[in-house]
């Protein structure tokens, strides 16, 4: 057996709080070996982040450490600060959850990366800057020469995260601690990032401790898995063994939720009318220097009664703007929305307000979308007060009924949102949306702010409600696997346009647009035998999503697409039906040509 690179013995982290000391990490023992990627999984509040930080010999104020952390032959706990600083950033690096907040807003990226490098080498400023450019190119940032002058606020979340990782890797550390490094990143960017980390670990024998809540990441990238519950490590397993048989109650529970037997979607039979008909919606925003940001461009789709449409795309694709325009929370520049055959775009806002009981919404951030001062009963009851003449007794009955169907405990009616978990908060939002028995619901990324277990539970709930109530909805998401479970139809959006639209079977069986293919590639399955890193890719997208302010003349994907040809950059692409199946915005697909070899 090889010698471990990090050995933790009886490590505890304690925080002093108003209500006395809180032990976040209790008596943890742990060993990490060179070149392995270890996943640390556990619910929020289980002490994962505290442990990750403690491995650097650090604790967030007002915490204190006890125990031993051996790194090689050095002891990190109680080490003199000057010695510890030499290790940190050089031999052990940390990547934290919020990339943009981890960068110094007053310094440009190049300066920050070169400082880390210079802190641990004899390099001059010029050499360090050159090194920074190389590092940024290494992590796939286009135009690194120019980007090193950018300040953190000028970077997208994905780019900031890549700047951070290049900072963390700049001194070729032996140990990388990554605390939920991809939460909040788009799926294609997440996949790119994890691929690079995986390669660095394999090529350079770097050890990675990857804190995550996502079983997909564990299955695809980790060699071993550590489960943390309530500050203690309760299980350490080899990933494949874990997925075969977790031998741990928490592990079994999350695996069961992730693999819950999913019934197939039931579609309404016979002739049904369109509940929502969106035609040629467009929206632009004015930004600085008189430039125009194209948020939504000629978006059209129909949703039949009892069916659901998944609107998929990464951040900045305009999917949320479409949802807000259907709800009249934002006025479109042009285009119409019909609800059950009636044009609702021409109504005055006052007239439309009366219709709001029929068309409801659930937002992404559950905590932010509930009035923090109101007990949840009041929040769920409000639509009934506004739209019905029910007595307070009838309202109470209806609220309890809808809470029950949303899987909420009737005993929690007087709780404030801050007392509930994110999953429960989102159920409250769902109950509020359903309380007036709406005909149509806009679900705007309702699962993406939730931890994986709560996410899986909410999806099951939505599916149940869909079967029971025959609910029609549009499900806005960047997560294709969720959409596959919940939606009859899928529309893929990229940079303000729909690039592919069709039934779920069509799109998943035979994706035609390169962007759809890339999205499908980035799905991380909960199966260590079907790892992304082992598979051949359908499409490898390069770089970042371009800015919606200066859109290219031809196909918007041309700059990232591996199959690009001259015609792609010259012609604007149109959405055209292919083989009587899904519609695709790519001339190769509509002319039935192969994409090409890549």
């Amino acid at each position, binding site marked *: 057996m090889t010698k471990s690179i990090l050995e933790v013995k009886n490590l505890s982290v304690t925080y002093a709080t108003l209500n006395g000391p809180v032990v976040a990490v209790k008596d943890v023992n742990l060993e990490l070996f060179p070149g392995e990627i270890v996943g640390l999984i556990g619910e929020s509040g289980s002490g994962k982040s505290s442990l990750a930080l403690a491995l650097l010999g650090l604790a967030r*104020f007002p*915490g204190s450490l006890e125990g031993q952390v051996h790194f090689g032959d050095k002891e990190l706990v109680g080490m003199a600060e000057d010695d510890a600083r030499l290790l940190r950033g050089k031999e052990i690096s940390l990547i934290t959850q919020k990339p943009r907040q981890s960068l110094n807003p007053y310094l440009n990226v190049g300066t920050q990366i070169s400082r880390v490098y210079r802190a641990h080498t004899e390099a001059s400023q010029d050499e360090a800057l050159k090194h920074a450019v190389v590092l940024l190119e290494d992590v796939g940032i286009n135009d690194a020469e120019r980007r090193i002058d950018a300040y953190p606020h000028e970077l997208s979340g994905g780019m900031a995260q890549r700047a951070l990782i290049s900072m963390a890797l700049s001194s070729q550390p032996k140990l990388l601690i990554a605390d939920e490094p991809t939460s909040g990143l788009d799926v294609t960017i997440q996949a790119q990032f994890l691929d690079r980390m995986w390669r660095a670990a394999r090529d350079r024998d770097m050890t990675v401790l990857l804190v995550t809540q996502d079983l997909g990441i564990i299955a695809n990238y980790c060699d071993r898995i550590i489960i943390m519950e309530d500050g203690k490590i309760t299980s350490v397993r080899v990933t494949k063994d874990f997925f075969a048989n977790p031998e741990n109650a928490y592990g079994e529970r999350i695996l069961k939720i992730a693999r819950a037997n999913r019934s197939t979607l039931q579609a309404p039979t016979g002739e049904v009318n369109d509940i929502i008909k969106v035609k040629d919606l467009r929206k632009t925003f004015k930004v600085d220097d008189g430039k125009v940001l194209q948020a939504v461009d000629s978006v059209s789709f129909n949703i039949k009664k009892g069916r659901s449409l998944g609107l998929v795309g990464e951040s900045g694709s305009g999917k949320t703007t479409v949802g807000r325009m259907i709800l009249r929370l934002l006025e479109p520049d042009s285009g119409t929305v019909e609800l059950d055959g009636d044009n609702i775009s021409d109504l005055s806002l006052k007239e439309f307000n009366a219709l709001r009981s029929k068309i*409801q919404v659930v937002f992404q951030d559950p905590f932010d979308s509930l009035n923090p001062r109101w007990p949840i009963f009041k929040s769920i009851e409000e639509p009934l007060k506004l739209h019905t003449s029910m007595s307070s007794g009838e309202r109470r009955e209806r609220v309890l009924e809808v809470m029950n169907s949303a899987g909420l405990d009737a005993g929690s009616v007087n709780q404030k949102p801050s007392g509930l978990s994110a999953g429960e908060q989102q159920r409250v939002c769902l109950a509020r949306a359903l309380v007036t028995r709406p005909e149509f619901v806009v679900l705007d990324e309702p699962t993406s702010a939730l931890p994986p277990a709560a996410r899986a539970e909410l999806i099951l709930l939505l599916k149940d409600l869909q079967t029971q109530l025959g609910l029609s909805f549009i499900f806005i998401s960047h997560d294709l696997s969720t959409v596959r479970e919940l939606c009859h139809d899928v529309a893929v959006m990229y940079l303000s346009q729909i690039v592919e639209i069709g039934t779920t079977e069509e799109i998943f069986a035979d994706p035609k647009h390169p962007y759809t293919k890339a999205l499908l590639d980035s799905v991380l399955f909960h199966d260590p035998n079907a790892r992304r890193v082992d598979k051949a890719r359908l499409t490898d997208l390069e770089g970042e999503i371009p800015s919606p302010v200066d859109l290219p003349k031809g196909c918007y994907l041309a700059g990232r697409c591996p199959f690009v040809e001259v015609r792609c950059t010259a012609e604007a692409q149109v959405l055209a039906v292919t083989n009587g199946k899904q519609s695709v915005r790519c001339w190769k697909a509509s002319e039935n040509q192969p994409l090409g070899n890549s």
Partner: protein
Amino acid sequence: MAKKISNESVVFKKALWYHDRLLLAGVIIVSIALFLSVFGYMVAPYDPGTPVGPISQPPSREFWFGTDSSGLDVFSRVITAPRIDVVLSVSAAVLSGLLGTLIGLGTGFYEGRFSSLVMRISDVLQAFPIFILAMVLVALTGRNLINLIFALTFLYTPIFVRLTRTEVMTQKTRTYVEAARATGNSEWKIALKHVLPNSLTPSLIQLSVTVGFGILLTAGLSFIGAGVRPPTPEWGLMIATSAPRLILGEWWSSLLPGIAVSLTVFGFASLGNALERRVAS
């Protein structure tokens, strides 16, 4: 390293202890001040307005705080003064709080030209030295209690406008406001039912601090002769009339009311301070 961290946590505990004590002190002092402003005349041993003994007596068993140059009992005057000082500044703080919060809600919720105009006016008001402006206002309207309250209200309103407006502008971008809109609330319902209650915290904290400053301002105005008229028991007035006698060694008739002002201001300020800490943590 570990040792250093545990030191920090000791500091943290000390800080908690300190702020708890601060809150306690604030609550006790404010309670006493409020009690005296209602019942001060009942518990005072002598009538604060009529001479009760020999002039300029040092503190004794009979006259706890001594008597002043007119033979008035200093202790009775000190504990009846809150009837003016505390009542006046509390009313002014509450009035300016109400007015400022409403204006702040309106201008924060509907940003536009009118809103900017209101803010510029309030900026100009805040730019003046508050004491001078108060003097001018009282001089223009006449020295009586009602005018003093209005002058203070006028001066303190811009603070609440600014505080509420800033908070409203933050709150109205939160998703629950959008959710309220999607539920079918009209705009004024959103403003009053959802945004306002969530924007009150800074103003509530400021209220306590404003009372403290109000007491200081009232006493100050009386000290320079622009406040209430003698022989009304009022701390600033007492200090003004007795200060010249300090030189004769008569410290009690001016120092003790001075301590009363300081303590009361400290009490209200630390209550506000402690509340702010509580909200922030």
